[in-house]
């Protein structure tokens, strides 16, 4: 039977791991390579690393870092942050990553998604869509770490990414980021139902039950989270953790 992936999403800032709340309030949560070692021991399905400042600072996620993760990780991992050229992708893949995550560039240069899918295969190209709803404003996709609106509805962004050959979409609710209040299931479902490629839910998962709901009610093919896998308890003490297969009872 098919079992959805459960994916820790780890945010990188100045060489350390951080966790955000609604894309702000960066809390330091530790050393990334140490986290990879713990996720190895816990048999995590897959990891995603995002350098959250890279696009705004017009630079690529450090390749030394990707190489260090590649040396350590026993599971597939995807890497995003500041990717702009095919050469960037080639270097990240040869450093050991299985997939790249395109965010800002997917909105600013949609043709690039097509070129990347053609050159490296669709299953290597993941597009991440960050979604925010402004008070009285409409829900739309944002880029550059949530600082610039695209004017595109998330479903539309997703359809365009699919049409250009993306193999997977991460749909991230900025409003739920770090809140651990559960996914925006309505958003996840609308995007998942709009495309025929896998959709990964991200933003808000606070319990194993939220992960199950992301798949059962949100129709996500895989479920991802940040806070859930780096914090423990009501005071949000830092503790890298990952549920065993029996703890996440997908239907």
């Amino acid at each position, binding site marked *: 039977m098919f079992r959805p992936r459960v994916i820790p999403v780890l945010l990188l800032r100045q060489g350390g791991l951080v966790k955000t709340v609604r894309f702000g309030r960066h809390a330091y949560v530790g050393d990334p390579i140490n986290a990879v070692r713990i996720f190895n021991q816990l048999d995590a399905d897959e990891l995603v690393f995002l350098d959250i400042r890279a696009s705004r600072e017009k630079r690529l996620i450090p390749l030394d870092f990707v190489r260090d993760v590649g040396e350590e990780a026993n599971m597939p991992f995807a890497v995003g942050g500041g990717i702009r050229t095919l050469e960037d992708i080639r270097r990240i893949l*040869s450093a050991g990553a299985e997939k790249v995550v395109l965010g800002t560039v997917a909105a600013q240069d949609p043709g690039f998604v097509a070129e990347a899918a053609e050159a490296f*295969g669709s299953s290597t190209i993941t597009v991440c869509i960050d979604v925010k709803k402004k008070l009285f404003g409409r829900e739309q996709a944002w880029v550059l770490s949530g600082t610039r609106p695209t004017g595109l509805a998330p479903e539309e962004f997703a359809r365009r990414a699919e049409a250009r050959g993306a193999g997977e979409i991460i749909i991230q609710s900025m409003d739920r980021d770090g809140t651990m209040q559960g996914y925006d299931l309505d958003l996840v479902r609308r995007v998942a139902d709009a495309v025929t490629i896998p959709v990964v839910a991200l933003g808000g998962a606070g319990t194993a039950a939220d992960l199950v709901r992301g798949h059962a009610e949100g129709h996500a093919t895989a479920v991802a989270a940040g806070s859930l896998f780096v914090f423990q308890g009501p005071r949000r003490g830092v503790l890298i953790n990952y549920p065993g297969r029996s703890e996440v009872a997908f239907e």
Partner: protein
Amino acid sequence: MSTLVIVDHGTGNLHSVEKAFRRVGADPVVTSDPARVAAAERLVLPGVGHFGQAMDNLKKHGLIEALDDSVLRRKVPVLGICLGMQLFARRSEEGDVAGLGWIDAQVVRFEVQDTLRYKVPHMGWNSVQQKKPGRLGAWLPAAPLFYFAHSYHLVCGDEGDVLLETTYACTFPSAVERGNILGVQFHPEKSHAAGEQLLRGFLAL
């Protein structure tokens, strides 16, 4: 020490395959040199990406003859992984090109009716059903889950070649075994303990 050669045909990252074999005690050589392939005592043909491009690359590196010689004439054990296994087939819809033709099979794209439920690529963990004992079959742990990432799958002309089957939108061969020719659609190198067990089995053949 028998040489295990991981064939580098320029598509995708071989890092994780190499690392996984090291974890189970092998000392693989990663190369695109036909001479090394022709002298190998055990071969791994990995691969992600596009079928047509992979065949082009094999040709470009002059690897087809060396592979045919090792696998068909010298009967060296070969393990194809994901696209690497698909290359064993006669033909693929992906690029509509001929494969190595080592097994009687075609490669077709997933045809999905229920598109809300079954997304393509098939990406995630899935179970397998064993269809015959096989030599590799003895190395399978109980009720294993393996990691899949693919949009195309095999259709075997000879059901006797099918070692494992998996169901996702349809039931397809997730592993084949024909003499010294072994192939898995999933990624043992990313499938934790179950995958490592299978790689150990391949090394023991």
